[in-house]
């Protein structure tokens, strides 16, 4: 805490000193964000954010950009309420680096790929930042080196090297379990006897009940072999912007790789065994091939983006069973087995994609529609759900008010039984701009549905929110 205070004082002094300099480019915003559960009045979210950005361009040769967040989040009585200052961006851009039209960016940065609106299946270099699950498209910054080369006015080539692995930021607070992958452990263990032992009347399978589950995260070693690489080629052809990309690196969501079972109690006669499982989680590595386009046809904005994900190897969950003979204290030649579970197969890639369109009508109503196959955390073809999203908005009263009465989406988890596997979200919003630098947004988020889908678990968390943003 003392170090945090010293850092804050340092930053404030730095701002004051540099604020005197006309050439310095301090700016930023303050954003309080409050959400309350509509059903029981409990606070769901309390975030107060100060974003301080400093931007300095050195003629046309280089630019330095930094963005630091100072925040409080959650319950003020919780010691974790005051967050450490977070360097969201600290990078230097060097233009015409070595050769003309080659730009180098070095440092903590956000590399946004993809042309779709907010939900970009090809935007994979920076790990997802899902702390606030309603802030779609937010990613953690990555320490990286990126090169952009513009051989012609209509062509761009990008190369990224991100040396250090970072896991995704999982949702915080009341949303913390929302995107946790369901850990489906086998419900039985097969039992057999080795030949040569006196036969026992053993069941072929014993039901297992998981008492406790311990997760151990195994981060990739902090070395150069575990860096990520990415390449992108973009071209503007006949009114269409198209891109092709490739990314090789770790995925920020881990998968179970080993499960070590210890037996807490066992009753072979009742066919029931209580166990504890210590599971090791590893981060899978994927090849990702992306394609995207955007264009405008008869006034309609159109975009599409797809990402093919290929695991770099087969990912299996190996289950290590205990030696039951040792537990029983006598060697009866009993062998217990649980088959390995397949998590990802190298030859079973999957494709996430999004297609969307937007249009502004003559009366100023803006409509944005998207169809998304596969949400951020969904992996393997079986898991990919369909999301139909829509937003209609209009500015009124000299653009001082923005109304978005139709905003939300429909999620279909299983087309064979839609009535039991769906979710819908209605997120109408009212935004007031009392002056140029202030934005006051309020609205509700109402969710309902049936089945096991991710968003269904939010249906008890319908909320009313108020968010104020003041830019300076």
């Amino acid at each position, binding site marked *: 805490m003392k170090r945090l205070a010293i850092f804050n004082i340092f930053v404030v002094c730095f701002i004051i000193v540099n604020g005197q300099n006309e050439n310095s480019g301090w*700016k930023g*915003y303050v954003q309080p964000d409050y959400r309350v559960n509509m059903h029981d009045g409990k606070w769901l979210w309390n975030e107060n954010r100060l974003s301080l950005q400093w*931007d300095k*361009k050195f003629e046309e040769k280089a*630019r330095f950009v930094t963005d630091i967040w100072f925040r409080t989040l959650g319950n003020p009585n919780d010691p974790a309420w005051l967050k450490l200052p977070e360097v969201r961006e600290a990078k230097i*851009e060097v*233009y015409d680096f070595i050769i003309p*039209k080659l*730009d180098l960016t070095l440092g903590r940065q*956000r590399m*946004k790929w993809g*042309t779709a*609106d907010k939900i970009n299946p090809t935007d994979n270099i920076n790990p997802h930042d899902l702390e606030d699950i309603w802030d779609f498209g937010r990613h953690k910054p990555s320490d990286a080196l990126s090169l*952009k080369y*513009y051989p012609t*006015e209509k062509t*761009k080539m990008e190369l990224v090297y991100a040396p250090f692995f970072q896991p995704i930021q999982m949702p915080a607070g009341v949303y913390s379990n929302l995107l946790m992958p369901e850990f489906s452990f086998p419900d039985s263990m097969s039992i057999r006897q080795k030949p040569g032992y006196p036969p026992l009347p053993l069941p072929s399978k014993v039901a297992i009940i998981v008492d406790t589950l311990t997760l151990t995260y195994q981060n990739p070693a902090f070395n150069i072999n575990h860096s990520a690489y990415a390449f992108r080629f973009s071209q*503007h052809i006949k*009114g269409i*912007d198209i891109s092709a990309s490739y990314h090789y690196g770790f995925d920020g969501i881990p998968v179970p790789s080993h499960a070590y079972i210890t037996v807490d109690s066992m009753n072979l006669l009742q066919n029931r065994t209580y166990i504890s499982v210590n599971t090791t989680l590893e981060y899978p590595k994927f090849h990702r091939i992306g394609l995207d386009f*955007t*264009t*405008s046809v*008869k*006034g*309609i*904005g159109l*975009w599409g983006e797809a990402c093919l994900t290929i695991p770099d190897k087969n990912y299996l969950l190996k289950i290590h069973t205990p030696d039951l003979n040792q537990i029983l204290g006598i060697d009866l030649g009993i062998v217990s087995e649980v088959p390995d579970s397949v998590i990802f197969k190298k030859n079973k890639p999957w494709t996430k994609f999004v297609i969307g369109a*937007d*249009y*502004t*009508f*003559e009366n*100023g109503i*803006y409509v944005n529609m998207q169809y998304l196959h596969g949400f951020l955390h969904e992996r393997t073809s079986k898991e990919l759900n369909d999301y139909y999203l829509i937003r209609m908005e209009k*500015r009124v009263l*000299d*653009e*001082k008010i923005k109304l978005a009465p139709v905003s939300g989406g429909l999620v279909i988890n299983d087309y064979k039984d839609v009535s039991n596997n769906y979710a819908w979200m209605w997120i109408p919003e009212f935004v007031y701009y009392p*002056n*140029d*630098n*202030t*934005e006051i947004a309020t609205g509700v988020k109402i969710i309902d549905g049936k089945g096991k889908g991710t968003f269904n678990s939010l249906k008890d968390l319908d909320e009313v929110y108020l968010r104020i943003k003041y*830019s*300076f």
Partner: protein
Amino acid sequence: MKPLNVLIISLLWAITSVAQNASEVLKKMDDAIYAPKDQSISIKMTVYDKNGKTSVREATTMQKGNNKRIFRFTSPASQAGIGILSLPDDVMYLYMPAYEKERRIASSAKNQGFAGTDFSYDDMESKSYAEKYDAISVKTEGNDYVLELKPKPTHKTDYTKLIITLGKDNYYPKKVQYFDKTNNQIKELNNSKIEKKGNYWVATVFEMKDLRKGTKTVMEFTSVKYDSGLSDDEFTVRKLTQK
């Protein structure tokens, strides 16, 4: 030749020659507006709401010829850094610092207000009038020409007619009246402080009134630089995202 035929031919000739004159005037007006090879301009925009309350926006813009323009807000803080790149063939990109990447703008958005002002994206576009409109007629009123334009079938716009008043001496527009489908005038642009700077005629104050809303925006050029030899590289997505 029958009298009726003579009448029809005479009418056709008259209509054609009027249209031809109107087209010539339109061409000369475009030539006057887009005479500089390139321009670098600092802009102050004052937006007046219907109660007379004001808010100010500042921006810089660079233009090359009549089909490349890059526009960037420098204030207020909430809009500083927002940039718009207009390229030939109706290609427009928007860069928002908070969004951190460029985004194509669908051409349907071009008829909407530009960043809360009374100018639309279409009004701010660098395209010549002749590319978007056909000259229908021209008449003389004192020292001015009054030119009527109608949008070309290929040009999607909310305006069905433009009436432009321009000086006979310099062909520079003084006033533009915009009409909607019901032939009601919906907007009016008044250009003032028209003077010759170097080789070019230029207005430095532009007042756009939205007659439906009772609002107006006054755009003032606070500094103008012509023919500084801007390269095509200045009008690229690369430059747009470099801020």
